[in-house]
């Protein structure tokens, strides 16, 4: 319905908190963009700015190439799911959903049909006459969803719309939302903390990071989910996408003939790595290697890269995550201050995903290897991925 362009937007709250700074990206018409990032990184603020609820301290917001920075929310034709629902407490579920449609002077029967269809989809039909106060948390959240999806706006803004729903419902809603996006072609900005949602729903995913001043930018990378997963732009993105998160290792890179040898700092472990051009430039220096938990494979002891005791194992049913420690300095990617150096805290806990059947007894050793070709490499100072 509409494309949307954030052009260097920034928001500083009256108390001085810089919530958003220098964020620029464009969403094309009908695109489904997911925003992810740690708590407090400015996702909601960004959404609220897109809705026109928050004035911009800097930058412009274009919709379909017209500057809408100062347009009132009611003139923007967007539908929003608020993180905290913001249901009308005095209206029934039905009225909550119908309200937005009534503002558009739609005939009553049409409203009725739209509301009932949405309620059906959200499994709320039974609750249409209830007030929000008499609903469970998840039901309230579904009403908040319903209020948005009954409409046929230029853009959807959804702030963690499924966070309080059970897995099953969430899967179902995910499908419905995606379908809606495809069918109506409504541009959608979607905030979630759920990795599965982020990976499956977004045409593209934007990874944000908290900023501490208005010189930085929240936006770390915006790309297709697979690209983010496979080719994270930097340590932050790599660490953020995927759950459990990518394991990071501090590596001393030594040049060998024809290849490079990577030695894990603080340990005896070392292994050869294929020498890409970019990585070769780091020979003789420290780099950071990233290993996703599923990149580990259980192997015979002889082939093992790691062979540590497993103090903790988490069985999820379908998979088991095993944790083990190596005496290597950990890498902290979360705090901005730390991107420039490492904080030594003694040991580094790694996590590997293995089939449940192979789960060892607690505190037994487990031999694990890694497909070395798939390793991720990062510059330790800037955090930027080292890639050819």
């Amino acid at each position, binding site marked *: 319905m509409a494309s949307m362009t954030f052009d260097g937007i920034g928001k500083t709250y009256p108390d001085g908190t810089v919530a958003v700074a220098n964020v620029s990206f464009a969403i094309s018409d009908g695109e489904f963009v997911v925003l992810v990032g740690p708590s407090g990184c400015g996702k909601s603020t960004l959404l609220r700015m897109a809705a*026109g*609820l928050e*004035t911009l301290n800097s930058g412009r917001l274009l919709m379909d190439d017209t500057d809408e*920075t*100062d*347009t*009132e*929310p009611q003139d923007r034709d967007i539908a929003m799911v608020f993180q905290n629902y913001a249901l009308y407490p005095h209206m029934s579920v039905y009225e909550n959903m119908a309200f937005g449609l009534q503002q558009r002077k739609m005939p009553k029967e049409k409203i009725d049909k739209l509301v009932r269809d949405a309620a059906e989809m959200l499994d709320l039909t039974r609750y249409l006459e209830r007030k929000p106060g008499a609903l469970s948390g998840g039901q309230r959240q579904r009403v908040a969803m319903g209020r948005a999806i009954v409409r046929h706006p230029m853009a959807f803004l959804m702030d963690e719309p499924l966070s309080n729903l059970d897995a099953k419902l969430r899967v179902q809603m995910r499908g419905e939302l995606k379908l809606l996006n495809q069918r109506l072609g409504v541009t959608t900005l979607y905030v979630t903390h759920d990795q599965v949602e982020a990976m499956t729903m977004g045409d593209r995913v934007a990874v944000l990071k908290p900023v501490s001043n208005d010189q930085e930018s929240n936006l770390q990378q915006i790309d297709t989910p697979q690209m983010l997963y496979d080719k994270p732009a930097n340590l932050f993105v790599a660490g953020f996408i995927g759950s459990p998160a990518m394991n990071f290792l501090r590596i001393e890179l030594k040049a060998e003939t024809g290849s490079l040898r990577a030695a894990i700092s603080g340990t005896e472990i070392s292994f050869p790595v294929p020498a890409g051009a970019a990585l070769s430039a780091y020979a003789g220096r420290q780099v950071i290697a990233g290993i996703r938990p599923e990149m580990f494979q259980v192997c015979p002891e002889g082939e093992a890269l790691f062979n540590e005791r497993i103090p903790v194992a988490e069985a999820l049913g379908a998979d088991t995550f095993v944790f083990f420690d190596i005496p290597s300095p950990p890498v902290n990617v979360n705090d901005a201050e730390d991107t420039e150096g490492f904080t030594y805290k003694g040991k580094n806990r790694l996590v590997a995903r293995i089939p449940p059947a192979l789960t060892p007894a607690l505190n037994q050793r487990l031999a694990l290897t890694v497909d070395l070709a798939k390793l991720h490499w990062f510059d330790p100072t800037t955090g930027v991925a080292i890639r050819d």
Partner: protein
Amino acid sequence: MHTTIGRSPRALGPAGKSFVRRNLPYLLIAPSVVMLLALIAYPLLFALKSSFYFWNLQIGPQPLAFVGIDNYVQALNAFDFRAALGNTLILSVAGTAIEFGLGLAIALILLRALPGMNIVRALLILPTTIAPIVVGFLFRYLYDPGGGLLTWILHALWLPVPAEGILGSPSTALAAILFVDIWQWTPFFAIVLYASLLAVPDEILEAARLDRASPWTILMRIKLPLIKRTAIIIIMLRFMQIFNTFDTVLVLTRGGPGTSTRTLGYSLYEQGLVNFNIGLVSAMTWITVLIVNIIVALYVFFAFRNEEW
């Protein structure tokens, strides 16, 4: 205050283009301001102008002479000014404080969802629905030394009642007037506080109970801070009302015995509606307005110091 955690009230968005939208808040406020201005400007200016003239309707129908600030000097030097100011302050400070405390206690009782509470509420409001001057009559009757119920109850409880009667003794008359005001206006506090306490979200109170806060702590640290705004406002409104009362004094004691119950409001009444000294009463009005303004401005300054408006 934000009972529910919300973002603080903020401007409803960026300035629009049309005149109406740009000036919307002012347009919404304007009718009331214009209305009040239309109603109040004339009397205020009338009073301001009159306060500089000698104008006593008993002496002549028209202002007789420009006397500068003479009226103000006269008002401030009047034999009863100090006594009246003192009594007025006692009444308004003690009255608001006690009414607030009692009203709050009652509001808390009203909050309990017991059967018949709505009738209790409707009954409770009765004292405020009688004209203050009629309330004066009621208490004249109740205080009557020779048949007053209250006098009798005090006797029955072996409490000392002055020989001159409750209203006849300088030691009790002011307290008696204070009691009348408390009786009449405590329900006002009770109902308004009750309504604002209703708006305190249950879940916050539940959280406090789980934090093992005693009912007292919940009151002091949760409920009161959450209704602080409303409380501040009605305290202020009541303070000003008491500051201007004269009706009960008129009926009960006419300021006596001596000057022990004379209030500024009564002095104003006397100069205005008995002596018809328009010039003098205008000066007194402005003096009163200034005094209350100073008090209220101080109060508002301190009470709202940490509040957003």
